[in-house]
């Protein structure tokens, strides 16, 4: 039986220049450099490589659904970190409200003192 090398011509300089276009065409990307694309379309060797890389990409796309099992402790640690972040967030917002409340109270007290000091009776008494 004849091998692929006997059937398909060996790679030329143009084939080497089109190596990225081969991958892009296999991936179905639409911004392939026109000159390289034209070579690939006219070259049996490159077309064979497009078919080969398309198969590699098909396997790679399917690998998205292959899951690695995380260590048992990993999920628990992340949930704990999220709990701590939630607590920090609650504490942070409570502190913010307390701070704003304090500012408001201090402002109101200052306003009362200022209005009281402005009353004519106070200035005459002084």
């Amino acid at each position, binding site marked *: 039986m004849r*091998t*692929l*090398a*006997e059937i*398909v011509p*060996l*790679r030329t300089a143009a*084939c*080497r220049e089109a*190596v*990225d276009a081969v*991958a892009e065409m296999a*991936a179905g990307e639409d911004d392939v450099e026109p000159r390289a694309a034209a070579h690939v379309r006219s070259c049996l*060797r490159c077309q*064979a*490589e497009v*078919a*080969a*890389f398309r*198969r*590699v*990409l098909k*396997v*790679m*796309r*399917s*690998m*998205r*659904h*292959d*899951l*690695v*099992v*995380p*260590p048992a402790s*990993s*999920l628990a*640690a*992340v*949930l704990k*970190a*999220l*709990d701590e*972040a*939630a607590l920090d967030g609650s504490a942070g917002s409570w502190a913010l409200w307390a701070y704003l409340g304090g500012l408001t109270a201090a402002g109101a007290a200052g306003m009362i003192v200022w209005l009281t000091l402005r009353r004519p009776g106070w200035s005459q008494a002084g």
Partner: protein
Amino acid sequence: MGPPPHAPQGNALSDLDHAELVNAARGGDRAALEKLVRATYSATYTLAFRLTGNEDDAHDVVQDTYLRAYRGLRRFRGDAQFTTWLYRITANCSANLLAKRARHRTELLREDEPVVDGRAEADPELRMSGSDDRARISEALSQLPWRLRQVVVLRDIYDLPHGAIAKELGISEAAAKVRLHRARRRLRDLLSAGGGAAAGGEERVRANAG
């Protein structure tokens, strides 16, 4: 070593389920947040593992990812799938971790990748067959420099657009495309040279949930 354990497969949720859980979690529903994390954990961990190449880094990346996602949950507009949003955060956290580490340990990107011989016996398609495909590709990916591995994993496995990859990795779209070209060339070389599963690396992919 016995057969690897299978990942839990009964926690897959639809996009609608994700959206409901996201809304509930935004409102402070702790149980919804935990359910959301449990439903997406294996997939997020898998991406982190593929990007970083080891368990310790993958764990750090995943923890950082979920903390950032939790803090940014209100900003998630729902115009993308929740999992895609998580993948982008994972890519960004992974890039930050690996870049930080690389500042201490220089890893060179070779500019002049050799183009492999075009002999038939070097053809990746002819070398790949049956159930070995995933193992060979996984092993070849693990041998790529991390900068190249990131782009090819995000583009060719997770199908993220060039623009999204560039943004999350903190590089220009042109640079992302250049890296992708290099990554694919190197991947092809590795597969052609039989540097995949034949190199004897431990296969980490343990279950197909698809």
